[in-house]
Each structure stands twice: as C-alpha cells, then as structure tokens.
C-alpha cells in the first residue's frame, strides 16, 4: 500500500521527467516525501526507488548523506541555529542557551509539546551579514536577540506547517512554485 499521496507521487513523476536521467530526481523526490511525511521513512524511500527505477538501497544511501533529510520524526517546526565563526563572533552561543532554556531540551531535541525540534549547526547558513542567525522551517531569521527569538517562536507556533514543509511566508517572499 502506498504511503505517499497521489499529489506526492505526481510531484515525483514531474521531477523525474525534468531531467535527462531519472536518477537525478532523487534529491527533489526525497524533498517531496519529507514535505508530506515530515521525515523520510523506509516505505517512502522505497516508493521513490520504484518511481525512479532504482533499488531502495540506492535511495537510502543518498538520503543518509545529506544533513537536511530527517530519518526520524521531528517537531512541527524545525529551528537551525548557526554556530560557525561569523555567528559565534556576534553571540550565537547566547542564542543557543536561550533556545535551550526556552524549549527545554538540548540541541537535537524536541520540545515537550512536540512543536519544535531545534539544533545548532556548524554548517554556515550564509547569513553572516545578519549574524547571529537561524533558519526556522527553512526561512532565514537574522540579527537575533533573545527577545526576537521569543517573538519568532510565538509567531511560528500557531502556524499550520511542519518541519519538512513551508513556514508561514514572510511578507514579500515568493510563492511556492510547487
């Protein structure tokens, strides 16, 4: 039985048909699965393999390589805090401590209400000009202070989105293409 919805399968087929070789659609297909399920499951990856003409292990090997795919359930919202040099020089550690206290769990954990999974990362997010910075559901949040973090969490908390999908759009942000 399919764990993917018709819409997700259609999206994977659309991706497959964009490329000269179907295998190139593995990454976008995994994004589609994570968007629907919140994380990558063996069943979801097996369906990707079927649709792209691969064996499941080929898809799983790719999924495990990239840091943005989740292999376990995460909160409805995902918070990624940069602690690389440019952010660290401008107070990233304070943001980390603030989130730890506010969400009541260490980096990599999920808040007790299941709303937020947060983690610190050494992977530079490319927001050094607005350091310290983080991403919430893939959207940049920059020039952070404890107060701003609280306001952002509050704003996101009630939004109808989850970690793999889009957060509430900022004003002026582009429409989702897919």
């Amino acid at each position, binding site marked *: 039985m399919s764990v993917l919805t018709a819409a997700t399968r259609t999206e994977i087929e659309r991706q497959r048909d964009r490329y000269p070789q179907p295998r190139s659609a593995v990454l976008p297909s995994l994004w589609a699965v994570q968007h629907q399920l919140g994380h990558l499951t063996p069943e979801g990856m097996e369906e990707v393999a079927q649709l792209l003409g691969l064996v499941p292990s080929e898809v799983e090997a790719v999924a495990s390589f990239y840091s*943005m795919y989740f292999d376990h359930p995460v909160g409805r919202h995902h918070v990624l805090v940069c602690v690389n040099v440019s952010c660290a020089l401008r107070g990233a550690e304070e943001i980390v401590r603030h989130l730890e206290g506010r969400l009541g769990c260490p980096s990599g954990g999920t808040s007790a209400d299941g709303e937020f999974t947060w983690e610190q990362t050494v992977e530079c997010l490319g927001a050094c000009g607005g350091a310290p910075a983080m991403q919430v559901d893939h959207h940049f949040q920059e020039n952070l202070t404890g107060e701003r973090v609280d306001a952002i969490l509050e704003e996101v908390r009630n939004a109808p989105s989850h970690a793999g999908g889009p957060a509430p759009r900022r004003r002026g942000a582009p429409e989702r293409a897919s």
Partner: protein
Amino acid sequence: MAEHRLLTEHFGTEGVQSLRVYEKLGGYQGLRKALTQMTPDEVVTEVKTSGIRGRGGAGFPTGMKWSFLPKDVHPRYLCVNADESEPGCFKDRALIDEDPHQLVEGTLIAAYAIQAPIAFIYIRGEYHDQRLLLERCVEEARAAGYIGKKILGSDFSCDVIVHGGAGAYICGEETALIDSLEGLRGQPRLKPPFPAVKGLYGKPTVVNNVETLSNLPHIVMRGGAWFASLGTEKSTGTRLFCCSGHINRPGTYEMLLGTPIRELLEEECGGVWKGRSLKAFQPGGGSMQVLLPEHLDLPLDMDVVARAGSALGAGAMVFMDETTCMVDVSMRLVDFYQHESCGKCAPCREGTYFESDLMHRLERGVLTTAELGTLTDICDNMNGKCFCPLGDTATWFVMSAYQAFREEFEEHCGAGGCPVKTRNSRLVTA
C-alpha cells in the same frame, strides 16, 4: 574610492526580481546581443579578453575553462554552482535575492557560448526561498521566450533547471556537485578526467559560480576590453566581498579589485565595532589562512593576497577584534570540516576527527603541551594528501593561527578553561 556597483547596481531597486522591471532596466539585452549579433566563439573570445577569473574560490580564468571543452562533442552541460556554503560567504545568496534575473541572463549567455542545451542551477538546500525565487524567474523568462526552443528567433535552444541540494558543503566542489546532480551521494571524483571532458552524465560540462555568471551580461554589453580595464591587470573587474564578524556594518560590498583591504574595512564596514582594535581577519572564507592587522594595506588582488600566505577565495572577509579567542575560532572551523567531510578518503575523514577532538580539549584547557605538538603532525598528514581540497583546507586556518598566535594556543594547555574568555569576563566586570 567607495563601492563600485556593477553587479549590485540594482540591489534594493523595487521589483527588480520581476522580469518586467529587470527588462525596463536594460535586462536581457546582453542575451539578445549575444544571440543576434555574436557567434558562440565570439562570446568566448570576449570573456577571455575580459580576463574574468572564477568567483567561486579557485580564481581560474573563465574563458579558458570554457575553451577546454572538446570540439564537436555534444551534448554539453552547464552547471551553475549556487551551493554557496563557505563559512563567512553570502554573496551568491545576495545576488539571487536582489537581482535573480541577472543570474538567469548570465546563465543563458554562458550556455550559448558553450552551446549547452540544458543549464542546471544547483542551489544549496538551505537557500529554500532563493530556490523558489529562481524557479519563478526561470518560468517568467521561459514565458517571455528567453528560455526554450529557438530563443529570440535564433537557432539556440536551452532549458534551465533549478535543482535544490539538501545540506552538504562538499557539493560546492565541482565533481561532487555533478555526482549530487546525478542523484548520488555528493562525493568528489578523481581528476582527470576533468568535467570539461567528462562531467555530468559523462558529457563535457562547465561548472561556473553565480557571481561569475552574473558578470556576463555586462561583459557582453560593454565588451571584454572595458571589463579588463577595471581592477588590476590580473584581477579584473569587481568582486562582492561578504564582510562579517566584529565590524560596525556587516554586509556585502562590491569593490574594484585592487582596492586596499583597509578601505573596505574602514569606509564600507565602518571599522571594528565597539571602538576595539583588530586582532586578525580571514580574507577568503573559512578555508583560508588568517591575516593580521599589518596586512590591511594589501590590495584586494588575488595574487597579492596569495603571496601574503592566504587567498581571497570566495570573497568572505571575517574580521575579529582584540577579544577573540583564536583557539575558539579554529575549533569552530575544524568542527565545520569534520561535519562536512564526505568520508571518501581517510586523511580527511580521520584527520578532521583528530583535529576536532584535539581543538575541543585545547579550548576546554585540558590538553597537554605534548599533545598540542601533535596538531602539526595531524595537519601534515592531511594537507596535500587528501582526495579533494576540503581536507587540505581543513588544516589551513588552524595551522596559520597556530603559527601567528602560538602563545595563545600554548596558554590554553592545562589551563582548565579558556584563558582568553576568562580575561574577557574580567574586562567586562572591571
């Protein structure tokens, strides 16, 4: 001399992300000129004349890179490297956010020059909104006839595919990018064969950086000779410098190459913050060696900075004030490379692990002086012995910082904590 705005001329212009406004500002005229008045070879020649060198970090001449494609082997592919992930670097994001059609136009000009029927824009997974913006721009350009069959009535047809990554610094290395685009783990390939001969799907492939391509509409419109007159003899044009760290005005500044670094720091960035003095800076992102205040009078010139023992790399300037702990900075950078090592070769996979373990113990003040001596050994066993530059560069900053700030490193040994942070907290409470 202040900023020289060529690529960033329309940054901040209302609505420039839309095709209509971009066209009104002269957009897509470069593509039109190339397609209707120039042969592909003439475009290549113009780009060679411009002297432009790749803006991704290595600084290889773009026109020469294109000319390595074997004659009469088709199809060929163009890959746009928008996998910007260098610590301290955010210029490609700015170029996409602020003037995305400039990149799409440059991409099409390059595709025409090398006669590629498909151009792939590989954008890092974290740039989610930027990917959606580019996808929208590509659709707009397609609807306007700039992408697709027989573009602007010429014989040239080209499709543009925006491809999102999923979190892997290594995919900025061109062969790893190609592997990732083929739907594999993003690990580098053995070179030769170089991508120009055997790249994406085994076909001749050119990989160019976002900033490099964003220059092309200007080079085509105003000529290679004009471009070559900007900057210095061997570092032509402008570059976008991403300035961050302990400065008053962090941001992206477009400067003529050859401008003194001091001018960028003091005039554009507003100097070091809080009235403090500069301790050190990195001129080219996380991979590059540390430079000192005495280097501030060097010009922004790739070769001059290289002779000083560092590199302009991807154009990321990270400034650190007098309170900065160089062990802490080194530890974070080493952690980054450990996290991003793809695992393909042992010197990098194991070496970054040893480096990270050692630097963490040093920062906590629990490393012995004898153990610190092994840092040089570890780095010697990595530098020049890794499969790709990631492992080499994982040693460059830490080794240069160890040389320049040896006392500070040694002071950490057995200190039971970070002595620099202890001093700083005394400063604050005093």
